[in-house]
């Protein structure tokens, strides 16, 4: 097998600190996905996905554009429900219970499974009101000021904004805005944090800070990220899932499929599937 064209020193470093597959699989399965498929207005976007997400890990979804990674991650907090024409088939178990069960309240789910988006989307309000929005609408009891400070500290933003909480959030830099969005999600005390390409709109320094944050946060939370940046997955993720696009014979329909799901180390050093190997070595995508 050819040597992959990524920084092998870095990989080795990650591998040293990386959890073994056995360690990971001993943890609780936060999500269990079986035979998941998503279609929009009848056209399949994603098919036959099955994997488990483990507690207090960072799980990364990588793959070329159009392979359904964002569609997939939105299944975990039922954000696809908001898209008219979107249909989700298959099962997603959240701590063993059916996330798409008939009697499950999607609104409540979203408190426990938070989301950070690709382009930072702070509300056009003050920094304080951004963080406080979630606790307020959910009617969370307790001291709001403490919650806001706690969330900002966890997102490593407190020191930078503590003197200007009443200032508008839109005045922050891109990296700060994204950390604000993370703090906003943390304020409602979630269990899982989903991040859809959280650093792709940011500069390298902000990206590094977000990645460091992920390392910190995974101690308390379970993190799932989508990234188009392989190196980022190699740096932060414990488990990595590689998705790819399958084109129909006549070239018309494109669907996403899960190709391989394993520890990051394995995906990047000794992938089992040729498609994975092609992708991580930069031969395509």
């Amino acid at each position: 097998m050819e040597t992959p064209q990524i920084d092998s020193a870095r990989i080795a470093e990650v591998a040293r600190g990386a959890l073994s597959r056995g360690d990971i699989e001993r943890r609780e399965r936060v999500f269990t996905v079986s035979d998941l498929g998503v279609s929009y207005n009848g056209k399949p976007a994603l098919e036959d996905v099955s994997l488990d997400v483990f507690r207090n890990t960072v799980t990364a979804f990588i793959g070329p554009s159009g392979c359904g990674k964002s569609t997939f991650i939105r299944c975990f907090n039922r954000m696809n429900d908001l898209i008219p024409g979107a249909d989700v088939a298959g099962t997603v178990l959240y701590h063993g219970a059916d996330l798409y069960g008939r009697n499950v309240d999607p609104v409540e789910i979203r408190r426990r499974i938070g989301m950070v988006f690709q382009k930072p989307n702070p509300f056009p309000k003050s920094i304080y009101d951004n963080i406080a929005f979630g606790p307020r609408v959910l009617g969370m009891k307790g001291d709001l000021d403490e919650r806001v400070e706690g969330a900002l500290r966890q997102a490593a933003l407190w020191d930078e904004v503590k003197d200007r909480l009443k200032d508008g959030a839109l005045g922050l830099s891109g990296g700060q805005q994204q950390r604000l969005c993370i703090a906003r999600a943390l304020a409602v005390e979630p269990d899982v944090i989903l991040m859809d390409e959280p650093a792709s709109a940011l500069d390298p320094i902000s990206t590094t800070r977000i990645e460091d944050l992920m390392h910190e946060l995974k101690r308390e939370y379970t993190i799932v990220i989508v990234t188009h940046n392989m190196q980022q997955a190699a740096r932060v993720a414990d488990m990595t899932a590689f998705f790819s696009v399958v084109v129909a014979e006549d070239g018309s329909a494109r669907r996403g499929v899960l190709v391989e799901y394993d520890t990051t180390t394995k995906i990047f050093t000794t992938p089992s599937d040729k498609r994975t190997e092609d992708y991580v070595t930069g031969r395509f995508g």
Partner: protein
Amino acid sequence: MVVIEQPALALPRKRIRWGEQLVHLLLFIAAAISVLTTLGIVLSLLMPAIDFFREVSPWEFFTGTTWAPLFLDAHFGVVPLVVGTFVISFWSALVAFPLGVGVAIYLSEYARPRTSAVLKPVLEILAAIPTVVLGYFALTFVTPFLRDIGLSVEIFNVLSASLVLGIMLIPTVATLSEDAMAAVPRDLRDGGYALGADKLQVSTRIVVPAAISGIIAAFVLAFSRAVGETMIVLIAAGQLAQITFDPRETIETMTAFIGATGNGDVPTGSIEYKTIFAVGLTLFLITLVMNLVSIRLVRKYREIYE
């Protein structure tokens, strides 16, 4: 490998949020008011109009060329009113359309951002002038002015009203056309300039054709507004229902008739009273048809990249 089995988590149950349902209902009711309004308009026009057509034959109404409802020897031919309306609208559109498109091309292609930032609000001011003031202006300034420059117009005449109405509609045509032109992608213009075309050629041969659906919509909207306009024609065009195409003459439009009669003391239930609704129905149908035509036209000429 030992997998620790956890008991399934009890997920929060979906509950009916009564507040949300109530909100949805209230909002629907608000939106339904618009449907009720249309229903009201249709009913308020139809019922007395049907009554009217029991006394006056539709044939006489729609084809008769004499309109004299208040005379002892009454005639109920609506044609003079309709002709009057369209004559006014024709002349107004003749004024509003070229000038409006001219203003639009200038603002869109030629003017600097600072100039257009000053001119656009001024256009808005022109559009905001109440029509009664415009009617007053047409009667007391424009008519004497036209006479002074040698045109022997009647005191109440088509020309004064059309000129003022047309100018009132310039902002409508200009803003819609300008929006349409602004929506034309930069690339198309750049392509033209790159080939060596000058501003005139790019504006007239590239931008205007690309924006044509919006410009057509602007025209139809302006024409439709002219048809529905009341005060300017009531004050300045007169109340003499006759068929004439000479813009110096006096005429009466459908709207002027309705306005004048409705304002007067016409006994409820009399035939004169019912004429209001018959003419109103005619007017309503004409504007409805024009609206539908406009939508159809816009759809037909809409380019792919819009």
